[in-house]
């Protein structure tokens, strides 16, 4: 039943990817409307998205930010170890996507990092792999893989709690569940015919994902505050930053200019 629901969701979201242009909202920037430009996307349903965004913002102010501030009170070595532990588990999803993207070099790097950090690094709490020259190449997810395969971002919307996304990235969220070994280990806790692991439960998965989210929020408290304080349209700012960030991640660009359009600057000289 659960699987059927997921397939239905994927089908709906795939349609949204295809129909991104047709569902263009009535508002949004001229650039954001032109989904053919990299780092841009149409709105799926801006009114609803703005309402969900407000809800998420209120939720963040009431719960997530205070939790993140509390988390920050924990001594740095413990926070760093927690972040490393979560990142190490998360690298398994990255590995699946490295392979799907055909990036075998990155896959080798991710696998090597996981092996070293899980063993020498004591279950990923420490990061000796970096000291050995295996730098963290960054996270990958199925939304990025779809992007690498050439899928258009589709339209943009905001999900309750999970935040900004595009149709492609929402499909990616579902795909992540299929590709993430941690998801499977924690969701197959019922032992049937000797298969499954009763030591874990679904809760473990959500603790792991929740901890990752709190760690990220704690690292960005000031950035979020500054963005909020200095935006004249916070919704549009977050949308722009989200789309730019996804574009950058999909291109796996190390250069700051590869995802920037110099043509935008040329216009002011005319």
């Amino acid at each position: 039943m659960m699987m059927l629901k997921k397939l239905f969701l994927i089908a709906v979201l795939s349609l949204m990817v295809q129909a991104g242009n047709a569902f263009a909202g009535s508002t949004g920037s001229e650039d954001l409307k032109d989904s053919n430009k990299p780092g841009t996307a149409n709105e799926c349903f801006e009114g609803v998205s703005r309402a969900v965004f407000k809800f998420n913002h209120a939720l963040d102010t009431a719960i997530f930010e205070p939790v993140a501030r509390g988390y920050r009170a924990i001594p740095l070595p413990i926070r760093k170890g927690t972040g490393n532990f979560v990142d190490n588990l998360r690298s398994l999803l990255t590995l699946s996507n490295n392979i799907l993207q055909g990036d075998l070099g990155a896959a080798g790097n991710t696998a090597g990092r996981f092996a070293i950090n899980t063993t020498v690094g004591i279950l990923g709490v420490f990061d000796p792999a970096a000291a050995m020259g295996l730098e963290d190449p960054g996270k990958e997810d199925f939304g990025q893989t779809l992007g690498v395969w050439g899928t258009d971002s589709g339209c943009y919307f905001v999900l309750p709690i999970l935040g900004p996304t595009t149709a492609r990235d929402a499909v990616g969220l579902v795909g992540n569940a299929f590709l993430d070994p941690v998801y499977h280990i924690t969701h197959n806790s019922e032992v049937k015919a000797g298969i499954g692991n009763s030591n874990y439960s679904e809760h473990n998965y959500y603790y792991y994902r929740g901890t990752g989210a709190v760690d990220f929020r704690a690292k960005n408290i000031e950035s979020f505050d500054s963005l909020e304080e200095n935006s004249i349209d916070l919704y549009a700012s977050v949308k722009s930053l989200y789309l730019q960030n996804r574009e950058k991640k999909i291109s796996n660009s190390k250069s700051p200019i590869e995802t920037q359009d110099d043509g935008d600057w040329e216009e002011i000289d005319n």
Partner: protein
Amino acid sequence: MKKNFFIIVIFIFLTSIITQKSNAYSSDPKQFITEIVNEAKKVLVDTNTKEFKTEKLSKLALETVDIKGVGYYSLGSYRKQLTKDQLKEYMTLFEKYFLKSFTSRLSDYSDPKIEVISAEVLNEKYTIVRSLLLATDKKPEVKIDWRIYTKNPDKPLIRDLIIEGLSLAKTQKEEFSSVIESNNGDFTKLFITLKEFINK
């Protein structure tokens, strides 16, 4: 006669000091950013008052940022729809908005540790200077790249800050555009929003 000569000498001396002061930044983009970072660091030390920081950072921005260029860029193609007077009003508002936003963003940092790493010439108009805001107990390391406008090679100017690959100018442009589009293309709403921001 002697008195006049003395006055002229003093005048030339003072003029040269003032001129030197306002053009004190290096024409080499990497060095230019290093000097700006060092100057900002001096201003941002905790012992300085907020008013002092705001005043000094505003002066720094006026001397080193192409505020007019960023203002035009932020307006995008709407610029061509504005009358001369509207454009003048917009630029006055934009400068105030920009300085308030710029000083507010920077004031969050006390004693920032920034390493200027390298510079890459894109073309005769632009050079990208790469730098790194070092990690603290609370914040992770952040890559900051500066888009430097070098059309006048003797006086480089900052046009954009690209933080971890995300352009602040582009974000601002899309924000402005969203405000205008949300009001059926009425850019006077943008003027009102900017005024609200300036006065808040």
